[in-house]
């Protein structure tokens, strides 16, 4: 062996040794890497299969009679699979053309997107979401080779299909409302997060979001088809049956909209409750949002004034309707009886503040019924002082004023009730609060509180979900008592007083065939810093019936009516219209028929 060969062997050996040492060194480095385990596990998992997250279809929402209020619709996401695009074959043109013709996409934008992916590693890019099923069906029908097609047509379709391999049509479920304006304030809407996940906003969609959405299930799908298993059952989201009656809701919304326009009001609310269960039979709020265009909410709310559901989120000074609570507390405490006489001189001083009647006149000797019938501020302020601050506010709190009712809707507000222990409270508050000024409440609070008079002194927690359907089984919601502010006797007495008041004044709120009780309210609207100088009012009416066996409580509020400022002139006439619909649709026969069966 010559010397030349031995040097070459040494060189080669050294080279191999160095390479081996490098490989060994790399192995040692990898072995010492702390993240090695996780990385290897990820590589292994990616190699073996992938994890699919399956979101169950969102639960449905029905009205109390089983009519669909919110469902799911099949729509498509149109996207590009860059791996299947053949640039030389001009696939971009074909896909852009089809996208434009069938899915109304912008031809140039699609073509440019296909030809210039956002990054070279881009595998898939969504072009558009929410494409209607009808459009996709039309496209697929067009592309399908039919027996009656000529050979040229068949060849052309085959050629087209080849160019469209990069076009992906991915179906998914989208929330849809058969009537997007109906009960929109109760339902809320479903928007999407940046990750594309549906989330409920407002109403029951938000309150019951987690139940409706169900639990997403992660499934490991192996790449090896030999290891494929059946997908586990994916439980659907919980469906809800509401207390709302669709027909009644539609009728009430129509009445409210007409009344708001007729009275020249800014906004309006009508709430209909079943006092015995607390079920909300109808809840109309005007203006309302078309929830199929929920993205309008942002621009509407930025303009101010727009509140998604005024029945639970808008607070206002209710005015004389509030006198019901003052009188109820006083009767319940025994401070006055319905026959107690009060000499009304037209003014009274409470805590240094002189309070006048709405007409600034004195009405002489009045019974408590007269005070309620004539809606005398002076008389009620006197009643409140007789009751005393401690008891007066204790009763108001028992009626739920200053607290949320706990209704199962998202966005409820508590209202404002200043208490004697609060710094901002002054003694004059007891006088103004007695007739519903200086205190604010939401319509649902007022309706719930007044329902105590229609339900033997008990307030049932107002709710809009009547039953839930989970795993194919239906569970009814049991009504619960929220509070018992007054005795049954007081409730009956005051109901009778208010029924007689309506009859005595031949109120526009009277209903043919049904004996009802009720109270009007006109609350002045304060201007911050200037007091009650706007001349604008909140007109309200609270009514319930039939008096001997109340089945409904109706609360009406019109904000800033312009044809008349008085609740008795703009809000009270709405009541019989609402009751007519309630009795027709909820099968409540007139008193004479009902009494005939008893």
């Amino acid at each position: 062996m010559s010397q030349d060969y031995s040097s070459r062997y040494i060189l080669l050996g050294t080279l191999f040794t160095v390479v081996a040492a490098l490989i060994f060194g790399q192995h040692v480095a990898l072995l010492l890497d702390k993240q090695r385990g996780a990385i290897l596990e990820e590589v292994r998992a990616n190699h073996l299969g992938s994890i699919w997250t399956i979101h169950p279809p969102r639960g449905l929402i029905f009205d109390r009679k089983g009519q669909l209020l919110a469902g799911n619709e099949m729509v498509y996401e149109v996207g590009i699979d860059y791996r299947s695009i053949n640039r030389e074959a001009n696939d971009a043109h074909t896909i852009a053309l089809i996208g434009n013709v069938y899915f109304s996409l912008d031809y140039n934008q699609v073509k440019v997107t296909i030809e210039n992916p956002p990054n070279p590693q881009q595998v898939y890019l969504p072009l558009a979401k929410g494409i209607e099923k009808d459009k996709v069906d039309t496209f697929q029908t067009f592309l399908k080779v039919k027996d009656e097609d000529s050979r040229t047509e068949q060849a052309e379709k085959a050629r087209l299909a080849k160019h469209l391999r990069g076009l992906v049509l991915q179906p998914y479920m989208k929330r849809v409302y058969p009537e997007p304006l109906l009960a929109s304030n109760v339902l809320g809407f479903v928007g999407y997060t940046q990750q594309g996940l549906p989330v409920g906003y407002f109403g029951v969609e938000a309150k019951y979001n987690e139940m409706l959405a169900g639990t997403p299930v992660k499934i490991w799908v192996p790449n090896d088809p030999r290891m494929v298993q059946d997908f586990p059952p994916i439980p659907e989201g919980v469906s809800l049956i509401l207390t709302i009656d669709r027909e009644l809701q539609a009728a009430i919304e129509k009445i409210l909209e007409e009344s708001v326009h007729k009275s020249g009001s800014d906004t309006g609310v009508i709430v209909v409750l079943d006092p015995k269960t607390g079920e909300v039979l109808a809840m109309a709020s005007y203006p309302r949002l078309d929830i199929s265009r929920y993205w309008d909410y942002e621009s509407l709310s930025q303009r101010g004034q727009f509140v998604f559901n005024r029945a639970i989120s808008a607070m206002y000074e209710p005015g004389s309707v509030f006198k019901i609570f003052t009188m109820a507390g006083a009767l319940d405490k025994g401070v006055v009886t319905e026959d107690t006489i009060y000499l009304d001189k037209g003014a009274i001083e409470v805590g240094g503040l002189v309070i006048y009647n709405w007409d600034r006149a004195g009405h002489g000797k009045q019974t408590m019924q007269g005070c309620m019938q004539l809606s005398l501020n002076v008389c009620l302020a006197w009643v409140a002082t007789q009751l005393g601050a401690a008891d007066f506010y204790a009763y108001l709190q028992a009626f739920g004023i200053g607290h949320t009712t706990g209704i199962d809707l998202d966005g409820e507000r508590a209202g404002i009730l200043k208490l004697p222990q609060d710094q901002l409270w002054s003694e004059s508050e007891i006088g103004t609060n007695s007739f519903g000024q200086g205190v604010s409440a939401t319509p649902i609070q007022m309706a719930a509180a007044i329902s105590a008079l229609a339900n033997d002194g008990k307030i049932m927690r107002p709710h809009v979900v009547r039953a839930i359907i989970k795993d194919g089984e239906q569970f009814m919601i049991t009504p619960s008592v929220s509070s018992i502010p007054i005795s049954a006797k007081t409730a009956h007495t005051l109901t009778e007083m208010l029924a007689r008041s309506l009859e005595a004044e031949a109120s526009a709120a009277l209903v043919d065939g049904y004996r009802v009780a009720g109270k009007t309210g006109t609350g002045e609207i304060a201007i911050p810093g200037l007091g009650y100088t706007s001349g604008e009012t909140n007109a309200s009416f609270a009514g319930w019936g039939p008096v001997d066996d109340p089945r409904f409580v109706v609360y009406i509020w019109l904000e800033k009516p312009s044809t008349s400022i008085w609740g008795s002139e703009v809000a009270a006439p709405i009541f019989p219209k609402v009751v007519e619909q309630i009795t027709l649709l909820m099968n409540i026969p007139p008193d004479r028929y009902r009494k005939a069966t008893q």
Partner: protein
Amino acid sequence: MTLASSLKKNKGKWNMNSLRRLTQAYIITPWRKQISTGMLILVGLLVVILAASLYLDVTARTLALGRAILMMENEITEVEMLNAHLRTQLGILTSSAMMEKRALEMGFRRIEASEEIYLVVPGYVPLDQTPLSSPSKKVQSVTYSLPPIYTQSLVDWLKTKLDEWANLERGKSP
């Protein structure tokens, strides 16, 4: 000397020598040895081909079934979506506004309260519930729909069978 010349020389009579020669001739014939070896190799090859074909067939069928399951799962998902879609379409067709429109087109009109007629039926209590769900529809527990034999390799299958056999030998049930 060939066998024929040996027999000719001995005038057609067999002896031990001729028999030995005959046996030896057959035993050591090279072409027979080659044929024998070749046949053995062929038989071995055939067995391997048979096993490979069987394995390929089972694997191919398993793969096809696995693929079919995936496709059917996708189909189930799509059909469920379609059902939900159709249910919503039905909801839209029977919506309050649509029903009112259709009723008006058919000549009906909304009645006034004064036109309502009530019939007193003693003892009648109207149903106040909305049963929307089927009674006790329990979620079925689903496990493998394919027996293990479809998901095992031939080696796995043989191993399982051997384990079963071994357990049986030890007096255990398979």
